[in-house]
């Protein structure tokens, strides 16, 4: 039963990783950009939410809904200003640009907020401590289930959006062949700007749950980036359902590792990541959804 509990907690933790990874996966799938600043943008969103909660004493969930449109607009401008130019210079340049952006965000946060560790665990109300006892040592965490639910809704919703809306189809067409997409009337840079806007907006959700669930400081970004990146790779590039699955696999691996020895949590996750990288298929849903 302890093992089952570890798996259940791992699945919930995986929902959080999938939520972190969602924007990363979208940008990688549509533009082939690996956004190295994704973790730091998530932490930036967490800080924005923290400021709103701290100043106006509102619920973190209301703060999250306020920050969401801000990040949406920020993402749009990130693409139209920095990334469009970078993409023109070749596939490697966006990687360097986002790396630089990561450093700028991290140090700006450090300058403004100091290296103090912060958290919104106590501000989220009953949900952060709620849990249901099922049997024996099996518990269902309230917040974990909420995160998982949000992750499924966001990733599933985005997948549906890509599949069945006009803009979604335009995004997939541009992802598969930007040159030809323009020949059928698609404004590729406009599509890219919207994709990045959506990707950055999802960091408001990731950042909120990061703050509500645990602690964060200006240097937390790279860790979130690694977990997000591992989730994307385990699930297979460019497949959003794959990313959800990848996050869950990572979460379960970490929790089972922790059960063996608390020191093994991160290691177990990394080992699964390496095993998937070394496997011939490279990503659980990679072959089917590689260019979804």
């Amino acid at each position, binding site marked *: 039963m302890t093992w089952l509990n570890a798996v259940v907690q791992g699945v919930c933790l995986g929902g959080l990783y999938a939520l972190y990874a969602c924007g990363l996966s979208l940008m990688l799938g549509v533009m082939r950009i690996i956004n190295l600043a994704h973790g730091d943008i998530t932490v930036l969103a967490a800080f924005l939410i923290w400021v709103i909660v701290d100043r106006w004493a509102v619920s973190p969930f209301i703060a999250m809904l306020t920050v969401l449109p801000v990040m949406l607009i920020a993402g749009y401008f990130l693409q139209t200003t920095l990334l469009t130019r970078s993409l023109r210079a070749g596939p490697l340049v966006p990687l360097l640009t986002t790396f630089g952006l990561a450093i700028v965000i991290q140090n700006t946060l450090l300058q403004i907020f100091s290296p103090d560790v912060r958290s919104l665990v106590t501000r989220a109300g009953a949900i952060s401590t709620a849990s249901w006892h099922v049997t024996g040592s099996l518990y269902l965490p309230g917040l974990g289930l909420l995160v998982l639910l949000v992750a499924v809704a966001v990733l599933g919703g985005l997948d549906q959006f890509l599949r069945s809306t006009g803009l979604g*189809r335009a995004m997939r067409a541009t992802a598969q062949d930007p040159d030809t997409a*323009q020949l059928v*009337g698609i404004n590729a840079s406009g599509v890219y700007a919207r994709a990045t806007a959506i990707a950055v907006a999802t960091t408001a959700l990731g950042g909120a749950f990061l703050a509500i669930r645990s602690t964060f400081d200006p240097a937390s970004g790279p860790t979130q980036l690694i977990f997000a990146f591992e989730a994307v790779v385990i699930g297979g590039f460019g497949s959003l359902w794959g990313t959800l699955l990848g996050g869950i696999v990572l979460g379960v691996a970490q929790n089972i590792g922790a059960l063996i020895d608390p020191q093994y949590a991160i290691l177990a996750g990394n080992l699964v990541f390496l095993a998937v990288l070394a496997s011939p298929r490279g990503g659980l849903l990679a072959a089917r959804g590689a260019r979804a």
Partner: protein
Amino acid sequence: MTLLEVEAIEARHGLLRAVRGVSLSLAEGEKVALVGANGAGKTTLMRVIAGAHPAAAGRVRFDGEDVTDLPAHRRVGLGIALVPEGRRLFPDMTLEENLLVAGRQARPGQWNVEAVLEAFPLLRPLRGRRAATLSGGEQQAAAIGRALMTNPRVLLLDEVSLGLAPVAVQAVYESIAALISGGATILLVEQDLARAIRVADRVLCMLEGSVVLEGSTADLSREQITDAYFGLRRGAGAAGAP
């Protein structure tokens, strides 16, 4: 009335001058074939007209408007549609999605998914299939259908028969026969000379980036075109030219 006018276009691939001062014009309803050997600059010229390749010099005018500096997607909105060489369908999207994605920013007009499936009956049973799984001929029909979804005023067809079995080429041409006889304005690149002559009102023959022969298909003999195609008459009047 002149619909498309190309004036002294130059286009480069790095240091290579692929198109060297080509001018041509297309009247509404006219069909013009662009012939020439591989590497003559036909595809590059088509891509310059569509806006997919930058012009190093010269102008492209469409319906009296200078479109030289417009990006490809804006030209689609004006009514220029290119069916690219190699078909270039979006491989992981279904046939129907390939059509829909092109119809999104379309000019108003007669073409929609139903009309395309009507015009290309071979596509009807395939609408839910992934484009990558279609045969070459089916892909070509789909690529033409996709271009039609934008309701173009001029259709640029690049190497429709490239890499297709003769029977597939026949099927594709049969399905666009109605389009051709229906008064559409078409500029096509075609390797098959006999077919080009049959379809087009006028032929332009390109050699090493320049137009070396131009005339109506009624006036030109097959031999004249073949000679121009291989550059046989070149230098006859100017000995020692490079």
